[in-house]
């Protein structure tokens, strides 16, 4: 029954569900939130399957995003193509270290880190791991927060293409990797959206140790 499936102290254990949108707590018998009319679910339906499907698509799309050119530059009639990594290397060689670092973090570290984090979180929930629920929740919140920042390189391409159109003298055109990479960012954002962090806490043993110890930690933290 419900008592066995959900962690001690959770709303689900009490036969209650919280609205995703407004947070109002309702009995399980309701299908729609009485306050904001959103559809109610105890947990996001098929959360793990959806997350896996979106992650796999993102991984597949990440291949052309790196192998294809993200933009083509024509300078005095000569055309050069650059990939994401190529752009970072070029900036580094030019001595623009901070900008190279920004692009590298936004286009490589964040998306790869995000895919790995979500894959590990989904795997740990699927296998029913019980360790570090709090740390895993923080990791999830982090992946949710930083996801949008990967879009920087796509915006750079859009701005350069919009600004630099001087024909043979100097022109910049978008490459197919720009769209592929935008797809990667959108898919990982959707994957983060479909992962339900409450699954990390379901099936924890009754009265887990992290609960009691962190509750007392908190009360000291709150005194400034």
């Amino acid at each position, binding site marked *: 029954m419900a008592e066995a499936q959900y962690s001690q102290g959770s709303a689900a254990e009490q036969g209650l569900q919280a609205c995703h949108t407004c*947070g109002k707590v309702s009995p399980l018998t309701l299908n729609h939130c009485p306050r904001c009319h959103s559809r109610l679910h105890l947990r996001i339906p098929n959360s793990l399957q959806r997350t896996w499907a979106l992650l796999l698509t993102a991984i597949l799309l990440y291949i052309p995003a790196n192998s294809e050119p993200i933009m083509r530059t024509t300078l005095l009639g000569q055309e050069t193509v650059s990939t994401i990594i190529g752009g970072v290397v070029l900036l580094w060689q030019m001595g623009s270290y901070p900008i190279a670092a920004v692009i590298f973090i936004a286009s490589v570290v964040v998306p790869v880190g995000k895919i790995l984090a979500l894959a590990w979180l989904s795997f740990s929930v699927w296998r029913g791991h019980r360790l570090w*629920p709090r740390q895993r929740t923080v990791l999830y919140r982090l992946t949710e927060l930083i996801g949008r920042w990967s*879009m920087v390189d796509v*915006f750079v391409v859009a701005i350069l293409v*919009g600004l630099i159109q*001087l024909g043979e003298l100097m022109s910049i055109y978008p490459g197919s990797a720009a*769209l592929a990479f935008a797809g990667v960012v959108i898919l990982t954002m959707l994957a983060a959206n479909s992962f339900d962090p409450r699954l*990390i806490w379901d099936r924890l043993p009754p009265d887990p140790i992290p609960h009691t110890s962190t509750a007392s930690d908190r009360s000291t933290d709150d005194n400034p």
Partner: protein
Amino acid sequence: MDQPVSDQLTACHSCDYLLRLPELQPGQKAQCPRCGHPISRRVRHALDRSLAFAVSALLFLTLALMFPFLAFKVQGRMQEMSLLHSAVELIQQDYLLLAALLLLFILLAPTALLALLLPVLLAVRRGRSGDWTFRFAHLLFAVQPWSMVEVFMIGVLVSLVKLSSQADVVLGLSFWAYILFSLSLTAAFAGIDRYQLWHALDEAHHG
């Protein structure tokens, strides 16, 4: 005090821990005792501040659309770009989808945010909320992650550095307006606490 007890009952968004939230005083915040996720935060005059910043964001957005954004000079030739122009150029290069995403992230989503936020805040202030305010607030939180104004600003700064070695780049009036728009929009949302907003809407609905 007359409120039914169940109204203060809530569950942590991150771990589903059931908790009873006391009425917060301005400056206080509540965290989930189990996972540490922030539940709610009350800021003094949060709604009035949000309203003020949302109105200024709307003004700066209008200005940002009216003037040149950046200009670029090389070998005596100059080219100007407005905010909408980069999308137009992408469309001409047959990158329709990329142009649509760009418009969505830097113009449509942020405009929708303001169009939803302003009426909701006004309804709360006037103590009159109906079914539509709940729908607007619902949409507001759905649209929020897709507004990428701050990310775009970082992209603009990166582009400026990339170009600085090859040509002179002139910052247009819209560039500054868009920066102020970005700051105002962030400030408007800094005062929005989901729990407090829904609570306020509830009170405006019943009271």
